[in-house]
């Protein structure tokens, strides 16, 4: 599935794309809030390199990734654990703001320990009046055994502290977070 361009500020009411093994494609409502301070999504052709990230229970491998200012990287993320995990590029603040929504998905049985319950997601979307799809360009929510790709252009401003984290309740706090280290040369 191609990555679509952003729909900043709009509430997307689309249903889940059921066939795909991964849940993050089109950008969603939450992507725009920080105006690109954390970078922006890109297309595969712009990527200068590919970085593989493996999700375990509950940590990433590797735990630190070097990047250059303005670089575009294609992340291939694979979940080798037994639980659902997220790969979410952003600042610690953005992760903290995303957590209540993830908690709500758990409370409503949408985000189960080892799978994403699409039926429950549909029901919750109906009740909430907007989509509970976890579709953000900077984030991939991946079930055990599945993989996803995320292509990201890092900002030119190297002072922003970016990391990749899992905001499934409890995971980030347990240490499921890795850092993007800007190369000294950038």
């Amino acid at each position, binding site marked *: 599935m191609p990555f679509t361009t952003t729909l900043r500020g709009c509430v997307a009411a689309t249903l889940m794309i059921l066939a795909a093994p991964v849940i993050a494609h089109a950008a969603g409502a939450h992507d725009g809030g920080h105006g690109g301070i954390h970078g922006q999504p890109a297309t595969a052709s712009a990527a200068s390199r590919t970085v593989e990230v493996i999700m375990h229970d*509950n940590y990433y491998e590797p735990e630190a990734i070097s990047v250059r200012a303005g670089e575009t990287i294609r992340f291939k993320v694979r979940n080798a654990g037994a*639980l659902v995990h997220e790969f979410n590029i952003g600042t610690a603040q953005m992760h903290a703001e995303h957590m209540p929504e993830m908690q709500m998905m758990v409370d409503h049985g949408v985000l189960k320990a080892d799978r994403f319950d699409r*039926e429950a997601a549909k029901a*919750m979307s109906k*009740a909430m009046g907007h989509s509970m799809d976890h579709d953000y360009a900077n984030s991939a929510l991946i079930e055990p055994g599945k993989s996803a790709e995320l292509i990201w252009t890092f900002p030119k401003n190297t002072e922003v502290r970016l990391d990749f984290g899992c905001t499934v*309740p*409890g995971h980030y706090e347990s240490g499921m977070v890795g850092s993007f280290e800007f190369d000294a040369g950038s």
Partner: protein
Amino acid sequence: MTRITRFRAGVLAAAVGAALSAAPAWAGTYDLTVDRVRIDTGAFTRTGIGYNGASPGPVLRFREGEDVTINVTNNLDQWTSVHWHGLILPYQQDGVPGVSFEGIAPGQTFTYRFPIVQAGTYWFHSHSGFQEADGAYGAIVIEPATREPFRYDRDYVVQLTDAHPHPGSRIMRNLKMMPDYYNRQQRTLFDFLGDAADEGLGAALSDRADWGGMRMMPTDVEDVQGFTPLMNGKGPEGNWTALFEPGERVRLRFINSSAMAYFDIRIPGLKMTVVQADGQNVQPVTVDELRIAVAETYDVIVRPTEDRAYSILAESVGRTAMARGTLAPREGMEAEVPALREPPRLTMADMGMAHGGMDHGSMGHGATAGDSHVMPDGTMMQGMDHGAAGDAAAGTHVMPNGSVMAGAAHAGMGSDSGTHTMPDGSVMEGMAHGGHRAAPADRFYAPGSGLTPVVADGGRFLSYADLKAQKPLYPERAPTREIELRLTGNMERYIWSFDGVKHEDAEPIRLQYGERVRFTFVNETMMTHPMHLHGMWSILDTGNGAWNPAKHVVSVPPGTTVAMEVEVDAPGRWVFHCHLAYHMEAGMMREVIVEGGPEGTAVDLGAGHGHGHARGAGG
């Protein structure tokens, strides 16, 4: 040691171990002496019992996969024993006199030998007389063989106890003589007059009569008060302090080594991410407060980011005392210590079982969002805390399990607070759900229970329902047998038992190797009992199916039914008991015999059976 350094050290050790493949990778020898010690809580001093000259005893540090040899030398003038709480080991190493072994005689050195087959936080204590209550306890920290599913920069053992100025034997004598001897919160005439003003004279009289008729006092949340709570051996004034650097993740290994007291733990200003319960990894859950039963352990990760002190508070559930320590960037700091909260009062809901069940359908139902309420068929529905559910009469709303509930179902429940007549003719008010504070429901407490945990400072209180195994220890399967155990007691005579039968009058529970037994505890008493099975895991039914967590202590609040399942895979003779020290001693224990086993491991149990806890002389 940082995680990376520790990991590298582990890899190096593993490589060395593999090279010496003829011998086990690690085989440590540890020495413990059991001694008379001086206990100084800051509030009082007395003599007690400790290990290696102190109480609490040392923190024993093992590695998963290690073969340990522990020499225990008894320097007392009475028999002693050491039980390794939560450890899976051959039954002869379990340390229960009269069941596992004879005990350790005065002056004798007994050598325990067993392999460590698990990792996490555990503890050890005497299983003789009241020695544990008198100070004979310590901690066990087992490093895992593989990487843990959480990260931290430093860790601390935080071991709690309820040190009492009276020695355990004296407390037992007093309780037998007068069960409310230590219950300082007895209700007085003034309390009664206060109730009459609140509830009306008729209701207050009826309430008083009911309680009197049952020979219980509504304040029986703690039957032994007057203790000084200690954190790592220090009273609140002693201010045990753990250092951190701002931004670090700190692992706190909470152990409740009390004789009788449950604590509600919180660290104002810090959330706690629970990563282990009873030594087993759980799917991490972030809370603001948690209740730790006697003998339980909880490992949490906290991440203090500010350069200031934080108070670590453990407030007894009866609200009579509070243990206090500090997390600080430097020594000599302290943070605010809040006042004790109002003591909880048990309600008629906590008596549910003693009345043969209540007519739930006639109970009142308030429309407050967030309340739990009991459905007509007796099941309990969790309160919803999102606004949409508040006006139930309006639209539909989505239940936590994804099904959609029609709004009309709520309206049909009726909102009158129905009264009903008790067997003795007195009239009991219905549960006015709308009236009582909207404590978020915890389905492990009776609906309307006075013990339902409430967060002190807002946020979330951990419930057993939140505990899910990070990686299930056993595959899920249906139980092959069910055993129901009623938790019973007579407070006036301070007798505690199962099914009305005390330990000394009971037959052992016999299990067969290979079974999966579902134990259902029906609590017919007014107290919360922490049930502890030796030698095998208790897979607590938290409603999470395959993710139900393995624990070694299952706490059962009054008026509730709680179930756990046991994969019977440890041959031999074990015990099973309420871990409240004076309840166990008063008869709330059973021997458990596991018959059969794989070729060569089945134990020859011989004819007849021992009488369980043979106490050493002097008790």
